């Protein structure tokens, strides 16, 4: 339909009626969003194929194609929406387009191409039912779906320009301003100034001087593109808003200031302006009413600061975009010194809605202080990314979790950055915060134009702050000194911290400088620039402290603190890269030394360690598989004799001896390292032989008994006295030990008490606490389980109990009951896999209700089914019991494995000598750094302080305790300066010829055999396998040491070639001196003096 120049509002009305009447709403239409995001993901190809297929099938007229702007779900583009049915096909492949055309023509649905909801696994047909869309309210964005942005006729059909007609029919400028004021609309550009008020100020300027309207489309925040989607997808709504604004304020000229990096937006705007002019909706004599207003498009050259209104005005004037002091505000002196108002794209796009529905109706959405909807660009580590429109006042949690679908990977979400570079980071604990201007400001952030960057725990907040400062120091105009130099200095200070040069003085200086920049800068850019720094310091102080004091980046981002991630991830600092390199070179003796130096239990850890090194292995990032470090360690330790490592010892000193209570991994490690430092140590052990939780909790099919024995025996030396069958609280007490003359005591009694469910009937026969169950079997060989066995819990002790039960003779079946889903089970994933493989049944999402007993014996367990509710503070979805879903599981044995605590009663001393314990968690309270309890001579570590944790954590605690007790006995301060664990040894890489990308797994005993036996399940690598797997290592260490054989360079950074010819370290028992040591850390090897973090 050719549109003619319209000469009156009435002519427009009749045209609109005609367009609506002539439109056939029932013809199926294929809608393809082709904004910049859509085109980038291939929408143009889809459009081409669709046209071709429609012509080839003779469907022209029967099916129509509509090309639109972005619909918001950018992540799933190129997508296809079918109207009027509302069917949505995400990420459409060109090859499938022909099928879709056919299906649309025949009114069918292609099930296999529909959206799959990841939470339920179900396919969802209609766009409106998809969680991403379902939780939104989209008055602005939904218009993008209904109109082709370059067709004025579409916009008019959808009700466009009716608001303008209404305004012109009424002819009352004051009424328009009143409506906008009533609506409560506030500027969407960030500051939130009431739009109606701004207009009124312009309208009341002395008449005579020309007035200007500006649409600020200089959208520059990283990761934010909501304005672009409106400019591209619905340019007429912005034009209509501006014409209405001009009528209300008496402006005759307008400017759209759009950044030159938005070519599609510029093209659509220019087309829209041309069409609007030729139809009498813009320009001279609009709709024949005598009212004239025209718009000019000015392209910004890409300076971020030009989004600031005074800089923008200068830029429009043709000068360098620099802000100036306000007042005078642009409403008094703007473009060419004339009164000017500047509103954001989204503000203008809201105007027609306000006129259409009335200000009162508009203000019904949102909150009283912030009305209407707001579009956010939701990006980062969230499952659904795209543009999200919600009423003001919804919580961040709603946007991130319900619309965004929660974290994209397994790492929980820790913060959201709002408001672009000038905004702040809001921590997950504050996600209940309503999204509106005031609440965000109070929380130290800003609404800004609506960017929302979601970050998970793999994001380092110090690095984030540094990133934004890097952006701002480049984008500050540089006019005012504190903004230019302040952002530069803030960046430098943050760079110091992420590079390991941070000192405790950095934080107060950062805060002081940030305050000064905020106070003294001229414009909004400088005044908000410190927000990223101040908000991260406020909410993530612990991360800053870790960087500065401990020299650790827990997100593994800051390279100068991380070094080789495998080594830093290891609680005892084992340099995995180093022994892996030796394995590749075939130097097993050297490899064993590297392992044993850091860890006194290498064979144990080679079997049961939860290998945090593999979690952080760079080969495992970006979709690959990490190097099988634990299996490689097993390969080395299986072929090595513990006696081959002779640690460096200090001569026996005459300080008072140390008592260690408990001979588990924590106690034995502490004893070993204290002995190496020349202390005499006595170990008090309740059981018959040392080993602690290694024996009692870990079943032999994972950790054969002789492996424990061999390793423990190698640690016991002449400085260590062992007192078995002696229990704290029964045979000795803390005070009796001190009376005996011990100078310090290390309590490492583990966590041997299963926590109770708290249900009636928990004491009937057949209900067994997991520790009792495992101990009876592991220590005494008594199989307590029979018949149908249930295990409650999702941790490792639950899985261990289940697998042990399965191997007992009288057991028919084993079921694990867990309240959340499998993905959330704390047990190691490969253990769960192995259990299921062996025949254990997994029942997830259940809550035990009551224990059914018959004749005083367990008969069954009644439980409720759960569904997943809201997310809790940990970011996991809370299990919510479904009332009325009771079921009963008939059981003969029930093992309760929900968690473990310590027998803290044995420490109970009344009065002043009491040791502080946490009665609820049943743990001993200690200082996390010094491991000291409230009594200065008493230290504690391992499970007794943390609750059930891992072997390697216990070893790390033992190592730390040894360091601290040594310092304590020497009368020194209990302090160890933090130090980044950077690679310092050079192992020459082997030339790679056939390195494979595929991770190798050691062989396992078949599950059929496993069920019957307690034989060790996992076998070791063969030599060929081990060398091939080792060759997959990416050698992150070389980034720090540099390749080549330039010895001078290496020496200058304190590096020693770690490639002694194999003869230098005889396999049978190397002299410690034969092992090469870096010049910088001579003497620190083998003495174990350093805490886990500090071992070089």
């Amino acid at each position, binding site marked *: 339909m050719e549109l003619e120049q319209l000469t009156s509002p009435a002519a427009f009305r009749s045209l609109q009626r005609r367009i609506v009447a002539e439109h056939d709403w029932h013809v199926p239409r294929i809608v393809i969003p082709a904004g910049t995001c859509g085109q980038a993901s291939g929408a143009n190809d889809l459009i081409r194929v669709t046209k071709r297929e429609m012509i080839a099938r003779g469907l022209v007229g029967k099916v129509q194609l509509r090309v639109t702007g972005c619909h918001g779900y950018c992540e799933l583009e190129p997508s296809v929406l079918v109207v009027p049915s509302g069917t949505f096909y995400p990420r459409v492949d060109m090859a499938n387009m022909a099928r879709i055309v056919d299906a649309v023509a025949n009114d069918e649905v292609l099930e296999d191409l529909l959206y799959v909801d990841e939470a339920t696994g179900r396919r969802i047909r209609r766009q409106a039912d998809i969680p991403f869309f379902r939780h939104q309210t989209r008055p602005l964005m939904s218009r993008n779906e209904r109109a082709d942005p370059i067709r004025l006729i579409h916009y008019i059909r959808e009700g466009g320009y009716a608001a303008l007609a209404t305004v012109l029919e009424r002819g009352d400028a004051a009424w328009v301003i009143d409506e906008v004021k009533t609506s409560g609309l506030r500027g969407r550009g960030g500051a939130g100034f009431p739009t109606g008020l701004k207009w009124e100020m312009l309208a009341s300027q002395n008449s005579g001087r020309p007035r200007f309207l500006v649409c600020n489309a200089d959208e520059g925040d990283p990761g934010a593109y909501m304005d672009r989607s409106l400019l591209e997808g619905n340019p007429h709504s912005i034009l209509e808003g501006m014409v209405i604004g001009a009528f209300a304020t008496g402006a005759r000229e307008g400017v759209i200031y759009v950044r030159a990096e938005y070519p599609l937006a510029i093209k659509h705007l220019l087309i829209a302006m041309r069409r609007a002019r030729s139809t009498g909706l813009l320009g001279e004599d609009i709709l024949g009413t005598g009212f004239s207003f025209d718009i000019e498009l000015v392209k910004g050259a890409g*300076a971020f*600061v030009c989004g600031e209104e005074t800089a923008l005005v200068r830029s429009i004037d043709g000068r*360098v975009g620099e802000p*100036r*002091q306000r*007042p*005078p505000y642009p409403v008094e002196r703007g473009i060419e010194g004339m009164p000017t108002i500047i509103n954001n794209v989204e503000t203008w796009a809201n105007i027609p809605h306000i006129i259409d529905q009335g200000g009162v109706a508009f203000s019904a959405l949102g909150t009283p202080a912030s009305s209407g909807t707001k579009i956010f660009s939701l990006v980062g580590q969230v499952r659904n990314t795209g543009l999200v429109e919600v009423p003001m006042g919804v919580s961040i949690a709603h946007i991130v979790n319900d619309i965004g679908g929660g974290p994209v990977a397994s790492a929980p979400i820790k913060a959201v950055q709002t408001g672009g570079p000038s905004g702040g980071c809001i921590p997950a604990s504050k996600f209940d915060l309503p999204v509106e201007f005031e609440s965000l400001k109070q929380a130290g952030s800003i609404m800004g134009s609506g960017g929302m960057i979601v970050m998970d725990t793999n994001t380092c907040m110090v690095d984030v702050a540094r990133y934004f400062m890097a952006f*701002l*120091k*480049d*984008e*500050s*105009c*540089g*006019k*005012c*000194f*504190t903004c*230019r*130099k*302040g*952002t*530069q*200095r803030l960046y*430098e*200070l943050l760079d110091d911290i992420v590079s390991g040069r941070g000192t405790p*003085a950095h934080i107060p*200086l950062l805060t*002081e*400088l940030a305050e*000064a920049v905020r*106070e*003294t*800068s*001229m414009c909004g850019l400088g005044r908000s620039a410190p927000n990223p720094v101040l908000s991260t310091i406020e909410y993530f102080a612990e991360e800053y402290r870790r960087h500065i004091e401990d020299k650790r980046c827990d997100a593994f981002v800051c390279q100068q603190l991380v070094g080789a991630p495998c080594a830093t991830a290891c609680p005892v600092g084992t340099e995995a890269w180093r022994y892996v390199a030796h394995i590749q070179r075939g130097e097993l003796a050297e490899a064993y030394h590297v392992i044993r130096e850091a860890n006194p239990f290498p064979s144990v850890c080679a079997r049961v360690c939860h290998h945090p090194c593999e979690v952080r292995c760079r080969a495992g990032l970006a979709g690959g598989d990490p190097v099988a470090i634990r299996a490689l360690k097993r390969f080395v330790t299986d072929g090595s004799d513990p006696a081959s490592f002779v640690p460096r010892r200090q001569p026996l000193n005459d300080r008072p001896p140390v008592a260690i209570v408990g001979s588990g991994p924590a106690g034995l490690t502490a004893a070993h390292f204290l002995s190496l430092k020349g202390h005499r140590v006595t170990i008090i052990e309740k059981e018959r032989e040392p080993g602690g939780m290694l024996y009692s909790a870990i079943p032999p099919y994972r950790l054969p008994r002789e492996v424990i024995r061999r390793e423990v025996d190698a640690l016991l030396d002449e400085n260590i006295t062992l007192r078995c069958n002696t229990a704290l609280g029964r045979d000795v007490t803390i005070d009796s030990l001190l009376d005996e003359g011990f100078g310090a005591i290390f309590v490492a009694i583990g966590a041997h008490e299963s926590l109770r469910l708290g249900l009636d009937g928990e004491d009937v026969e057949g209900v067994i606490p997991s520790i009792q169950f495992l101990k009876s079997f592991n220590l005494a060989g008594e199989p307590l389980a029979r018949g149908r066995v249930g295990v409650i819990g999702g941790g490792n002790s639950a899985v261990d109990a289940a697998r042990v039960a399965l191997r007992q003779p009288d057991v028919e079946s084993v079921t694990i009951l867990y309240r959340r889903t499998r993905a959330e089970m704390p047990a190691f994933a490969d253990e769960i896999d192995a259990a299921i493989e062996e025949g254990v049944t997994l029942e997830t999402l259940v809550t035990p209700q009551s224990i059914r007993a018959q004749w005083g014996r367990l008969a069954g367990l009644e439980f409720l089914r759960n569904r997943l509710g809201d997310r809790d503070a940990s970011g996991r979805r809370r299990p919510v019991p479904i009332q009325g879903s009771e079921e009963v599981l008939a059981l003969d044995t029930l093992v309760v494995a929900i968690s473990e605590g310590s027998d803290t009663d044995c420490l109970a001393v009344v009065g002043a000598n009491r040791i502080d314990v946490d009665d609820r968690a049943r743990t001993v309270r200690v200082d996390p750094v010094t491991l000291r309890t409230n009594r200065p001579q008493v230290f504690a570590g391992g499970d007794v302080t943390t609750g059930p944790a891992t072997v390697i954590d216990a070893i790390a605690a033992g190592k730390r305790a040894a360091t601290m007790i040594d310092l304590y006995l020497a009368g020194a301060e209990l302090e160890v300066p933090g130090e980044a664990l950077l690679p310092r040894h050079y192992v020459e890489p082997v030339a790679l010829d056939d390195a494979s990308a595929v991770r190798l797994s050691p062989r396992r005993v078949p599950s059929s055999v496993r069920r019957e036996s307690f034989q060790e399940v996992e076998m070791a690598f063969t030599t060929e396998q081990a060398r091939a797997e080792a060759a997959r290592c990416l050698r992150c260490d070389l980034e720090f040491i540099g390749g080549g054989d330039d010895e001078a360079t290496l020496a200058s950074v304190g590096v020693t070639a770690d490639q002694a010819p194999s003869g230098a370290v005889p396999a049978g028992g190397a002299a410690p001196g034969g092992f090469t040591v870096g010049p910088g850390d001579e003497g620190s090897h083998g003495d174990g003096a350093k805490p886990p973090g500090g071992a070089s």
Partner: protein
Amino acid sequence: MIDLRLNGLPVQVEEGSTLLEAAGMYGIPIPTLCHMDGLSPYGACRLCVVEVGADGRSELVSACTYPAQDGLLVRTASRRVLRARRMVLELLLASCPQSKAIQDLAAAHDVRRQRFHQEHEDCILCGLCVRMCAEQMTGHAIGFQGRGEHRSIGTPYDARSAECKLCGGCIYVCPACSLRCTYTDPERAVCGGCANLAPPCLDKSQFHDMMCTMDPCVACEIG
């Protein structure tokens, strides 16, 4: 006339005055590096910040650019102002430690150390030279280039500007760091004004056509 309060003192100033002018008229000193009578106010150095408004809703603004308004409460030396000013001076000291003007101001404000990485820059980008050139000399020979940390002062395309009259005004107004003449490398000189008629430069034949009447700068005297 406009009535306002300066440090509690009720004062009257002419319409259109800035706070800096108002304070100057009543003898209240406000330090500044980028302001000069006869040149338009710019607000670059941020040293002249003062606190305007009542408690709770007050803010810091640069006195040189802020217009005096009826009923405005202005404090030129509140604790907040001095704290901010000291940080500005510390930043200046960290960048241009060799400037006598900055050293004196820092000493006057009891700023005795700076805690940042020491730099040795010779320009604080106050823009006096640019304004001098444009507003008093109608030269428009020099201007700002780049933004953020890359901002600097120079001529278009860094070539000798045909607009430059070699008047030396830019060097004359330089407040802090004494813009150096670069007479030994005239192609790169901003204005070459130091090649003036005073004895040390007279011998240098390549500057015979220059018209500057300034005193020689230190570099010339040494050279």
